[in-house]
Every structure is written in C-alpha cells, then in structure tokens.
C-alpha cells in the first residue's frame, strides 16, 4: 500500500491526450463547490447551487470551444 501511494505521488500518471478535455469537469466541480460554499447563504441549497454553477461553467466553456472551432473552420 505504501509503495503504491509512493508511486502515484512520485511518478507522473500517463494521461492520454483524448482524456485531457474531460479532466476539466472535476476541476469545474471543485471550483463550483468552493465558490458556492463561500457565496451560498442557505447551506441546504448548496447541492442545487453547485450543480447549477457547474453546468453554467461547463456550458460556457463548451460554447467558447464551439465558437473557436467555428471561427477556425470559417475564417482560417
């Protein structure tokens, strides 16, 4: 067990290129949790607020990505 934990925090993981865009989702969730934990007045509404915020961020990023792809294909 110690050997395994030493290896995973010592040697870098080999992440395939195809997986990299999906790595943004856990990061968005983490940012959403911290931000909404600070901002949300009612702690009971926290899960709903975090879910909404995460979808907004991921949706916004997807829109920016689509716009960039469209500009690339239409103008460049």
């Amino acid at each position, binding site marked *: 067990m110690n050997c395994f934990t030493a290896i995973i*925090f010592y*040697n870098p993981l080999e992440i395939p290129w195809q997986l*990299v865009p999906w*790595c943004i989702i*856990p990061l968005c969730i983490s940012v959403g949790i911290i931000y909404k934990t600070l901002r949300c007045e009612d*702690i009971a509404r926290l899960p709903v607020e975090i879910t909404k915020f995460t979808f907004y961020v991921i949706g916004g990023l997807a829109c920016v990505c689509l716009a960039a792809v469209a500009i690339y294909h239409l103008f460049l």
Partner: protein
Amino acid sequence: MESIDKNSKKMDKPLKKIWLLAAFLAWIVPGAGHLYINRRTRGIIIFFTVTITFWVGVAAGGVMTVDRHCHPLWFYAQMGAGINGVVSWHRQKVVYNELLDSHDIQQSDLLMQDSQPSDSLINRDKKLAEKKIALVPPGEDVARAYTGIIGMMNMLAAFDAALLCLMGISGEPAGGSMKEKDATDQDSTNQKNRDT
C-alpha cells in the same frame, strides 16, 4: 436552571475574532478559517475539496509538480493551498537535493536566462525524464491547473474568512437564502399595499 441561563448568556456574548488569524488559519489549513468563525460545515467542505483536488493534481504530475524554479507563477498559485503546497514543495526539494547529491543535475541547471528556458534547464528536464519523474504533456497541464487553481480558490476562501471576521460575522447566517428573504419581503410589502 441557573446553569442553562449562564450557558445561554455565554452563547449570546459575541466572541472577539482576529481577522489576521482567520486569514492565516484559512491559508495554512484549508477550511480552518471558516471553522474559526463558527462556519463548521463550510470549513469541512472546503478542507476536503481543496485537499482532494490538490493531491489529485500532484498524482497526475508526480513529485515535480510544485517547482519554484521552472514555473514561478504557478508555484505562487500552488502555495495558496497552504499545508498541501508546502508539503508538496518539501517533497520536491528532497528529491531535487538527492539528484544534486548524486551529481545527476547541477545547481546551475536551475537558472533561467531572460525568463526563457536555458540549455541547462532543458538538460535538467532530460535527466528528470530519464529518472521518470519529469512532467510530460498533457499530464503537466492537468497537474498544474488542478494544483494552481485550487490554490487560488483557497486564497479566495481565506479572503472570505478574513472579511467575515472583520465584519464581525460569526456562525451560519440566520434564516433562509437571499431569494427566500426577498420573496418574503416582497410578500409583506404587497400585503401592506393591499391594507392601505
């Protein structure tokens, strides 16, 4: 009965909090600043989120994720994660010192020339790659984004704890959410208008 009265008096008396201590606690141990201002649930949520995300980043990038010499701006962001960043930096320094002792790399390899990677820095990266501890794309970006961004989010939490402390706010806010409050306020004003 008297003891209950005494306890209630103690609870009512506001505790004087030091905002600098709240900020320092919130930085060094993520979430501790919110625990200090009696926002226990929020403190625990912040602690687990920051710690898990930071160490997922370190797992993706390995021991060289927190590197002061190669990426100073990312380093400052990573240090925002408090004890997580400091422990990670210490581990990196221990490994680096071992490599220096074994003459695998030189101290001069750490220097940057005009903020551009020098040849010695590239050689250093090659040597780290031989040891299988160098950060390689795309894991490099994932690791730095995870650790750096969550470090900055922890700084935001520290700022929030300090600000609440300065404002003299302690404990969870009373009542429901702002929207609910607004709705009840709107209802009461409508009722008053109808009465008049």
